[in-house]
């Protein structure tokens, strides 16, 4: 009797250990790559090219980060990225939230298909005509081309998330406002919009992240002064092929804000992503 019980308990324990191992296996690649990035960025060049590799830095140093900021105007690139991504996100909210509302209310799903088509088109295909247009308009050398092209990423995300959100919003309150003589705009502005704040947060976070991460528009459109962070980080590679420390430090600077944001607002991000399985890119 007792033996049987312990055997059952042992089997359950083994099952649990196996499951814990499976969790470890599935999560560790994600963790390892980022830890390796951190390790490379904190080590001296000697430790970085040592073989066998040094995993935990013996004498952690911030020299690599200092080097990145001294060797190039990295501060300016951070500002560029903040301006481009910030403007593209805010403009997308201003345009996309009402659009999502209109589409959800009018059930104009064929318009939503337009958003999907924008989603499947390769970004490079927008770039050739827009590149020529920006040259023609004399906008090259400013941040405008970047802000405008980043709207291609942010607007579809915002519209898509907001359609899903406004659909789940109960229409009674707006109907009541309309009956009381409010205009459509007032019903939207004072009734629907405040209720939609959680949806707007989700849309803003996703739009921000995917615009922040975008590389392809910057690599084509940005000049020396107007680089965004991903382009600046890529350039660290081309000029300093062998310096791994500064390269990892630069990579960490661009991606760390996104990683922290992801961990802290995980729930919002999951809501938005599962709403339509979208992403920029």
């Amino acid at each position, binding site marked *: 009797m007792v033996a049987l019980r312990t055997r059952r308990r042992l089997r359950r324990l083994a099952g649990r250990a196996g*499951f814990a191992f499976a*969790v470890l296996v*599935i*999560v560790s690649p*994600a963790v390892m*790559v*980022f830890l*390796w*990035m951190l390790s*490379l960025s904190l080590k001296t060049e000697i430790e970085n*090219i040592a073989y*066998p590799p040094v995993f935990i830095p013996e004498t952690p140093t911030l020299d690599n980060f200092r080097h990145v900021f001294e060797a190039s105007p990295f501060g300016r690139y951070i500002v560029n990225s903040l301006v481009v991504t910030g403007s593209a996100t805010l403009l997308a909210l201003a*345009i996309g939230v*009402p*659009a999502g509302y*209109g589409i959800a*209310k*009018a059930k*104009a799903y064929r*318009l939503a298909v*337009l958003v999907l088509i924008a989603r*499947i088109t*390769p*970004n*490079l*295909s927008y*770039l*050739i*005509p*827009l590149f*020529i*247009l920006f040259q023609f308009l004399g906008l090259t050398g400013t941040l405008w081309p970047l802000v*405008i092209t980043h709207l291609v990423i942010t*607007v579809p995300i915002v519209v898509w998330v907001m359609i899903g959100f406004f659909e789940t919003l109960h229409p009674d309150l707006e109907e009541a406002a309309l009956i009381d003589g409010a205009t*459509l705009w007032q019903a*939207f502005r004072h009734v629907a919009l405040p209720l939609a704040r959680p949806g707007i947060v989700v849309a803003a976070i996703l739009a921000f992240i995917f615009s922040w*991460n975008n*590389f*392809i528009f910057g*690599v*084509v459109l940005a000049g020396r002064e107007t680089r965004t*962070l*991903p*382009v600046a*980080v*890529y350039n660290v*590679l081309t000029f300093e092929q062998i310096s791994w420390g500064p390269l*990892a430090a*630069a*990579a960490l600077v*661009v*991606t760390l804000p*996104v990683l922290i944001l*992801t*961990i802290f607002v*995980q729930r919002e*991000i999951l809501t938005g992503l599962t709403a339509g*399985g979208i*992403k920029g*890119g």
Partner: protein
Amino acid sequence: MSAEAALAGSRRSHALWRRLSGGAAARGRPYVLFVVPALLLMAAVIVFPWLFTGFMSLHEWKLSQARSFAGLDNYLRLLGDGRFQWAALRTLYYAALAVVAPLVLGTVAALIFHRRFPFRGFLRGVFILPMMATPVAVGLVWTMMFHPQLGVLNYLLTSIGLPPQLWVYDPGTVIPSLVMVETWQWTPLVMLIVLGGLAALPTEPYESAQLDGASAWAMFRHITFPLVLPFLMVAAIIRTIDAVKSFDIIFVISQGGPGTASETLNLFLYLQAFAFYDVGYASAVVAVFFALIVALSLTLLYLRQRTQWSP
């Protein structure tokens, strides 16, 4: 413009609107106004590029040189361009691998995260980090990890007794190596989609199967898998579109090399447009590329309908 023409124009646009909006404008409320700014913007940054691309593709046009009408010459040139055809084949090969691997691993991960265990929420957050991280940053770290002499991957391989690899420095292994990065990055998206499917599953079939003494595998094979298949198809569609369009990872890690061994359509397109400035020819590539993506998406959508209707 005469008043009559303007009226006809507005009537036409109204009819167009009604067609687009599925007849909802008949309900009499001008919700169209909410959508107008977005529509104008989309016309400027999306529809205009399409039309202009079509126009350019019919011209012999290099930037900073005079352009001349060329009819379908650019398209005919594609037919005879071996480099383009190899790029197209490579894209399909890359996409096939970069769809299947994340689908399999993502399903496994979803089955794991579907169960309750301590720190599940936090670990799920950690698990989705690769898909939110900046692709360029990730690509750079992988580049260092792939280094044949000093890279950590070869150290790990040799420490468990396997021979070191050339990874992205060998034409034969460059695409699988890049797909490894792509899989690392996008398995979380598949996991999230399948997890959504698992959350919606009914519990009764499992209860009766358990009473009948079905094994865990049998339950997965005959209950879970058919029920989440529609979600898997959605994941497959999204993955296919993204894999075909993949750019950042390839551009950062291998630049399409060694030689042209990892030059996919997107890389080929970039080269034609922004290294050779041959925008006429590049536009023809865009048109064919876009047609390929639409064809692939429609095929998968068709398959998805089939899986939903089959008993």
